[in-house]
């Protein structure tokens, strides 16, 4: 739920900065490591978007797989949520380089000119 709250705050900031009267679509990327269930986030987003310009907006979620970089040998590899072992040196001392963030990619919104075409 806290992700949804943070997300709607950011969406509304963007919408307001562009003078939007409505939001049709919100595109986000969620990293595998955040263990977010897309359906649960969509439901939470729907709830927090109520009574805002983003009410009814579609949440499009792209999932980003985990990528790690071995601190010992520098090898970059696709890690799994339960396995961070370097395929080259066998250690599991890694920096997570992708798949740990939640990113707001885009907002599709309606501006007054579009909402009321002359």
């Amino acid at each position: 739920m806290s992700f949804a709250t943070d997300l709607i705050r950011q969406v509304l900031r963007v919408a307001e900065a562009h003078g939007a009267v409505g939001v049709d679509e919100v595109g986000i990327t969620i990293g595998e490591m955040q263990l977010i269930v897309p359906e649960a986030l969509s439901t939470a987003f729907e709830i927090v978007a109520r009574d805002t310009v983003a009410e009814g907006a579609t949440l499009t979620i792209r999932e980003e797989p985990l990528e790690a970089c071995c601190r010992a040998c520098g090898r970059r590899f696709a890690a799994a949520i339960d396995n961070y072992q370097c395929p080259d040196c066998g250690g599991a001392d890694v920096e997570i380089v992708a798949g740990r963030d939640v990113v707001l990619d885009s907002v599709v919104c309606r501006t007054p000119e579009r909402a009321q075409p002359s």
Partner: protein
Amino acid sequence: MKIEVVQSVLKADRDTARRTRARLDAAGVVAFNVMSAPGSGKTSLLERTIPALGPDRRSAVLVGDLQTTRDAERLGRSGAQVVQINTGRGCHLSAEQVAEGLDRLDVSALSFVFIENVGNMVCPAGRDLGEHLRVVLLSIPEGDDKVAKYPTLFQPADVILLTKTDLLGVLDYDAGRVRDDLSRINTAAPLIETSVKTGQGMAEWLTWLAARRPGPEP
């Protein structure tokens, strides 16, 4: 109209965490985010740790719980400055709550700040609170399969404490399984077997802690 944003939803949180770290760095304070399931012994560990660190390494605790001030009352008796943060329905501490908690402490008098997170093995893992290091506890009664079950908690840990080892002879527990799981999840963090009841591992833990902020032997 499509607006490309490409900004982390966690940005505000991370900015707050970064400011907290900078503030602690300026004061020469090292902060630890202490995480585990409820009942793993976070509070008991800190109750023993803080007095043992001695007057040269003064500590404060920010303690997060959904409800009650029980942990703060216990920790207050150890002589530390303590701030209880009640998260209400929140299942983890946030960077903002930690920053506000720090405002209530005299940071200049401290060496260490322990942030005792809400007992939870999932939600706290992905949140940066402004700490320098992550301490993760796993108690024997929880079972020897938890590292593999909750890898996102153990992967970023800087030290892992296997607690309540006095129960090793009582319960069926294979510490080898924990080490085997860690060989795939985190080989950088030392695993220290501890018991606040028998004192096992406390010297090793205190040595690890003291090395984070050099000074006289604890």
